[in-house]
């Protein structure tokens, strides 16, 4: 006697969705019925084709614009005394050229990701952003601009501070733009923790472009508590050392 199996049960059987009893029943029916057997083979072939078509994507390199950097191990040589680094570059007004492509590569990988943990940078030529004990820190002209510059100062130089605000953790944070990077830094002790850095240049062809993704403004939206500082609030915050 032939057991009736509907096409939905057949597919559920192929997908491993049936209990042992049901599966045994369908299996027996398929063996006994050439039509069901052919249909099962056809479904298997399509499933195989689909996986053969889409599975290779798993082995592809994830494009930089999708990568969210969590933690990159810092090479031992890169663990340097931050104060010494900063002293060594006192007076320097622009980041060293040979460091820029490396930053661009790193920053591109952060195009949509918030920075957490430490990131790897070339300790030999740090520039605006350097690794510190608790994550990335502002250095050089960026640190100076964050310490001293009021937002929207015309012709501010290598680094332009865009807006200042207090984040949901109560820290004063400031968004900034440089030639090839833009980002957000928040007051941490006497320095500035860089919480986000986005590339403004495409490393592959050297052409300038705005970072794809949400951009700094969208990231500010996720962090801000209340409204951005107005000019008076910003001056007051600077007078208090951005506390």
């Amino acid at each position: 006697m032939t057991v009736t199996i509907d096409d939905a049960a057949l597919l559920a059987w192929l997908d491993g969705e049936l209990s042992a009893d049901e599966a045994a029943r369908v299996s027996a029916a398929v063996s006994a019925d050439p039509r069901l057997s052919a249909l099962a083979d056809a479904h298997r072939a399509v499933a195989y084709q689909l996986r053969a078509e889409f599975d290779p994507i798993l082995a592809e390199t994830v494009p930089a614009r999708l990568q969210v950097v969590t933690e990159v191990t810092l090479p031992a040589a890169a663990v340097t005394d931050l104060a010494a680094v900063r002293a060594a570059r006192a007076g320097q007004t622009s980041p060293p050229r040979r460091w820029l492509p490396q930053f661009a590569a790193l920053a591109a990988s952060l195009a949509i990701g918030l920075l957490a943990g430490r990131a790897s940078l070339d300790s030999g030529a740090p520039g605006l952003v350097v690794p510190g004990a608790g994550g990335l820190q502002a250095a050089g002209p960026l640190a100076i601009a964050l310490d001293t510059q009021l937002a929207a100062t015309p012709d501010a130089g290598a680094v332009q501070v865009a807006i200042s605000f207090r984040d949901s953790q109560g820290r004063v944070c400031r968004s900034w733009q440089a030639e090839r990077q833009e980002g957000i830094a928040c007051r941490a002790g006497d320095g500035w923790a860089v919480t986000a850095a986005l590339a403004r240049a495409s490393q592959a062809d050297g052409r300038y472009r705005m970072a794809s993704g949400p951009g700094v403004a969208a990231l500010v939206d996720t962090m801000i508590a209340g409204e951005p500082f107005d000019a008076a609030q910003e001056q007051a915050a600077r007078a208090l050392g951005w506390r």
Partner: protein
Amino acid sequence: MFTAELTALLPRLRRLASALARPPADSDDLAQASVERMLRARDQWQPGTRFDAWAFRVMRNLWIDTARANARQSARRAPEEDGLNVGDDPQPGLEARSELAAVRRALAQLPPEQREVVALITIEGLGYAEAAAVLDLPIGTVSTRLLRGRTALLQLLAGKENDRDN
């Protein structure tokens, strides 16, 4: 925790985006928009629950509105073709993109509600109940749509083979 989960899932997110997005749309654009939404909505994921199901749901919800609008638009644009080319691609050009594998073209021709079920279950390997949770649908609906989609794929791919033989 969150970023580690997300980073580990990126290859699968790209695969799902590739199965959902209809060529010539850039599936990495969908993947990127989804990752951005996940970063903004990260507080909505409950640690201890399945991250992939949550992430797939974010991507699918981002994709479905556009996909439905496109499907409606295509249907309005070519009403005279109804009945003449059942199951054929309403979007001119797609059919002719010979660089696309036949199976990818066939998948792209499924209506969105069948394509998403095939993508989640047959390509991503989710169980019916897991897919139902991602899609917020009863499991019976998922099972019915899967059967329709898989049957349509059989017909579309069988049609391709006939075309080649002729």
